[in-house]
């Protein structure tokens, strides 16, 4: 956290140093804009596995370049988005997905937000219904302040 950013930046640069180029290169891009847009959307969900937390769409590393080309090849060959992603996962494992799949192992990951929201909501409703007993009597200080306010 010293430099929350800086560490991230340094790591990003490590990736960059391996292959100093910009992420998506003009020569990679597909001629068909609809297909290219799909390729970009898929790329944003795939991890550059030699970098820290960068998608292949953002990364300059060699591996990211290879994966981007691979995704575009699959799409050009007529794969659907899901098929193209499955193809990459079959080769590189689930680690490549920046958005983990809904599976038993990831149940807690996906379930936590809903679980906490529901539990908190239920707790609040129950507490609200119970009424919570009587209001606490005034403390000495509060009584004094009340006197003040009433102008004594």
């Amino acid at each position: 956290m010293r430099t929350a950013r800086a560490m991230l930046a340094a790591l990003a640069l490590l990736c960059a140093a391996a292959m100093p180029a910009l992420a998506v290169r003009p020569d990679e891009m597909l001629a068909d804009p609809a297909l290219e847009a799909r390729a970009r959307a898929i790329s944003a969900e795939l991890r550059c596995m030699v970098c820290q937390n960068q998608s292949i769409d953002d990364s300059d590393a060699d591996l990211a370049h290879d994966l981007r080309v691979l995704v575009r090849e699959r799409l050009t060959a007529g794969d659907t988005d899901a098929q193209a992603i499955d193809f990459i996962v079959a080769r590189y494992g689930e680690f490549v997905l920046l958005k983990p799949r809904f599976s038993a192992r990831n149940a807690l990951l996906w379930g936590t937000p809903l679980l906490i929201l529901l539990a908190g909501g239920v707790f609040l409703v129950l507490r609200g219904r119970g009424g919570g007993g009587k209001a606490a009597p005034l403390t000495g200080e509060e009584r004094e302040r009340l006197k003040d306010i009433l102008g004594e």
Partner: protein
Amino acid sequence: MTVELGHFALVLALALSLVQAAVPLVGARMEHPRLMAVAEPAALTAFALVALAFAALTAAHVTSDFSVVNVWENSHSLKPMLYKFTGVWGSHEGSMLLWVLILTLFGALVAVGGRNLPQRLRATVLAVQGMIGVAFTLFILTTSNPFARLDPAPIEGRDLNPVLQDIGLAVHPPLLYLGYVGFSISFAFAIAALIDGRIDAAWARWVRPWTLLAWVFLTGGIAMGSYWAYYELGWGGFWFWDPVENASFMPWLAGTALLHSAIVMEKRAALKIWTVLLAILTFSLSLLGTFLVRSGVLTSVHAFATDPTRGVFILAILTFFIGGALVLFALRAPSLAAGGLFQPVSREGALVLNNLFLSTAAATVLVGTLYPLVVEAVGGDRISVGAPFFNLTFVPLMVPLLLIVPFGPLLAWKRGDLYAVAQRLLAAFGGAIAVTLLALVFIDRSAAFAALGFGLAAWLVFGALTDLALKSGLPGVPLATAARRLAGLPRSVYGTALAHAGLGLTVLGIVSVTALEAERFVTMKPGDTAEVGGYTLRFEGLQPRQGPNFVEDRATFVVAGRGGEALGTVMAAKRMYTTRQMPTTESGIRTFGLGQLYVSLGDLTEGGGIVVRAWWKPLVTLIWGGALVMMAGGALSLADRRLRVGAPAPRRKAARQEAAA
């Protein structure tokens, strides 16, 4: 010699912190005023000693004393003076020293400013602060000593990581730490309340401004870090959901919740137990952030296992403070008296909802950040949790929260009238709908989500304005009267409105960049032009240039507007830092209105061209501008006399103000 003096001062500071942690605590238990009185001088001296140690390290850096390992590893005689200075906290060791410096500074502030606190409370708070000081000073001295020497001394240093040689390093870490460490005060107050088994008015009056202060700094630290990454990393992103970012974002979310629950506690003496728990959790998340970033666990669980000294030490600190605090909470919380009652529809109720959503959001970020670590540690498998996950879970949690924000300040305490408030917000709602429709019609007919985002941002800003208008008596009084009343409103009312409006501006910037950004990747040769977002860039060529400790190739682009009018130039560069042989990309940024033209360079191609990536980012500056407005709101609220640190209004006057309000 200076360096040894610094080392010695730090060891003494450890001793002083031990005294500060133990003696006042015993004194408070025994009701012994003299023992309790030890707290203040101990806290002040500890701060003075850590400041001395910090000054010694700074002197070594500024004079490029390469016989000190820390200076040799992170400095260079040719490094510009500003970075010699900021490089003090550019390394692990130096940044931990800054952490402890700020911790003891806050301790000293409590010692000086807390004279009007009950002595027992003050002594216990300072003792808890002292314990945190002991833990981290010991951590520095045993695992991360910045004062270690080298013999023989090298002639030249290895230079600071080039990414850190930026003005961002001067601002971002100190602000972030002031925020992180500032929450230690709220934590210390919470622990003191649990130890004493009681919370009184003085407690709430103190916790609120300290939390607010820490929150203002943390907001600034995160925003500054985001802008730094935006211009430095060269691909124009402003938030990456990186674990390191999440480490600072979780305390912010919890701290924002704490800020709001502390309001309820101060005004209505309700939510006491929850506020105490939240204060503990907020600082726990700060500690967790320190652990995540400092232990190396983020790169991989295995990297952590190969050199675990630092990680295990921080993990022990973490376990002691978080575990201890939670055990204390479990034991003592039931003895804290519950406070005032309120109906579900009331200002308290709205703030409870705020807390529910913010806590859930913090928990979501926490689970998303830790899940890959847990999966790897348990099964050896590696999974990734990145931006797509967080966008999918975090955004749906934020939307309902942002929708209820304008209701909060308008609802009455204790029992509110939702229907009446909704009526008063009708104009703001109409305005938001109008903005949504305008965005849909004029900008992009297919982008319904973007249009709704604009509407949500407008809702927040108009809601904040409605609050101010209603509190000045509009629409029931003449304009002149309203203007006079507006000028006389308490600063905390302005603070709330500004903070909420700032949030709206940030949302506006984020939605605008996400939905409307224009992007262009091209290979350019000198004389080529490229068009992005209505601006035309003409590439003039590359010039080599020699910097103090780097060489660079600088590209100049001439910018022209839609009608061909000249708008000046924008420069981008590729740099090579000679000592570390590390390349960096220096993006070129020009601000037009609230948007920015962002140009970044890629590889040279064979035909003598260069790959150029250019973006037009509409309203992007609002992302950080909104954060500045939020900070201004926090600062204004802090300047409210009723809340000023350690200076409550005199009883009579306060009473009159209350009566008038």
